[in-house]
């Protein structure tokens, strides 16, 4: 009778399924395997709590309001870079996506070549390209815009292509059956149908790019990031808190706006 109270899992043999155990073992094993390299240790974590709290105390200070106009200018620059880079990327991604979608690509070879190019473009983070472009064309927003646009094309064209691949084939046939040419079919049947997905992709990427643009300044590629790292280095926490706050506000506002916009365009 004591078996009634024994705990067991609801499987055939009472043990959790094998894949579950393997996944769990793998995760735990990998965490221990990676822990030394990532310098994870419980001691360090615990000992860092007081320092963390101390730092939080330091960082919560009276914001330096006189910095506000300057901050506004930098924030505007960041947003402008985001907008410009995203727009450039849209212009380049539209034609590329037609080549990179299985159902609109002129040839499987072109499809594979374009897809590989795109995954190369999006592989490295914006900051690496920003580093390279800064040393190529000098400091300022230009290398930032170039880096953002370059990486964005890699993402955007891929998302666009995926949107094109799932359009309803029936209207495509409807347009093709009337003798429309290769490009006509794409502009009149594929693109209008993929349009809502395009809009939400652009909004999503705009969101991502704004966040990326805020840190491009770390390597001198324009935007608010430069002020951020400078105030950090100079222990100018009255400014830092203002910068962090403004980034939070702007990113959140854009997030909300894009939610509203996406719901309207369907």
């Amino acid at each position: 009778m004591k078996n009634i109270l024994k705990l067991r899992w609801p499987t055939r043999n009472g043990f959790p399924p094998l894949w579950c155990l393997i996944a769990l073992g793998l995760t735990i094993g990998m965490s221990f395997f990676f822990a030394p390299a990532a310098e994870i240790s419980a001691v360090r974590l615990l000992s860092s709590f007081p320092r963390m709290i101390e730092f939080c105390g330091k960082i919560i200070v009276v914001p330096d309001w006189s910095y506000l106009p300057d901050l506004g200018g930098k924030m505007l620059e960041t947003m402008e870079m985001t907008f410009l880079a995203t727009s450039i990327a849209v212009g380049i991604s539209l034609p590329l996506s037609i080549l990179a979608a299985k159902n609109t690509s002129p040839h499987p070879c072109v499809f594979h070549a374009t897809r590989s190019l795109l995954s190369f473009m999006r592989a490295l983070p914006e900051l690496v390209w920003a580093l390279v472009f800064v040393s190529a064309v000098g400091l300022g927003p230009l290398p930032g815009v170039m880096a953002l646009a370059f990486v964005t094309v890699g993402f955007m064209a891929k998302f666009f292509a995926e949107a094109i691949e799932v359009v309803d084939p029936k209207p495509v046939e409807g347009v093709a059956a009337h003798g429309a040419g290769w490009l006509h079919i794409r502009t009149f049947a594929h693109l209008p149908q993929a349009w809502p997905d395009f809009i939400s992709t652009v909004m999503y990427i705009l969101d991502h790019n704004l966040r990326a643009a805020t840190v491009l300044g770390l390597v001198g590629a324009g935007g608010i990031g430069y002020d951020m790292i400078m105030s950090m280095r100079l222990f100018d926490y009255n400014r830092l808190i203002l910068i962090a706050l403004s980034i939070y506000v702007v990113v959140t506002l854009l997030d909300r706006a894009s939610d509203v916009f996406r719901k309207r365009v369907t």
Partner: protein
Amino acid sequence: MSHIIVNRIEKQFPNGVQALRGVSMEIAAGSFTVLIGPSGAGKSTLLRMLNGLELPSSGTVSIEGQTLGPRVMQRIRAKTGMIFQHFNLVGRLSVMTNVLTGRLSHRSWIGSVLYLFHERDLKIAHHALERVGITEKAWERADRLSGGQQQRVGVARALAQGPRLILADEPVASLDPVAGEEIMRLLRKICDQDGITVLVSLHQVALAKRYADRIIGLNAGKIVFDGAPKALEHDVLNHIYRNQKAIGNEEHFEAQMAYA
């Protein structure tokens, strides 16, 4: 003069289904022909082949003396209008733009990629809309229309093309009886007034008998009946729609018989 000559075409799909087994026929210019037959008999495949949407595994199709092949495809499609069971409109575009897609084969690519059309094309589209009687919906989005109205847009799109041949693949199968009747009347009128050859595949034998000049019955990829609507007797229908059990659709068969 025959408009379409189909010569012993066979079609096997990659999944092994043999849709057509040696179909030959000639369709006279300006005639109204209806294809009937059970589901899976190959009606759709045959129709789609006349427009190059499917390519035959063997045999040839020639339209107005031109043998259908990849090189002449676009030229033949430009003269052939097609109407689909599910309308196949681009739902997000306006009715007008949908009708204008019928004009694309007459336009160079550069302007129309930017959605620019000649005033003349607009005029033609307007006339087409007028004929199907939905001018007042011209600027509405196509997916906001009812099924019957969407099919009219489909007819208008085919008309705007200025076709010599209209192929209609079960144009009334997803419509209610009244709307279906109207579409058939419209197609008959187009055939009579403009002298356009019309080829329709249908499920409703009654409609076929009422509107067709000639009826072709298909079963299991072969032509089993070819003649005037009057010759379509009960036992002939039985012949066309036999083997329904194999497909497992007996009720459908009964319904068909009741219609006839």
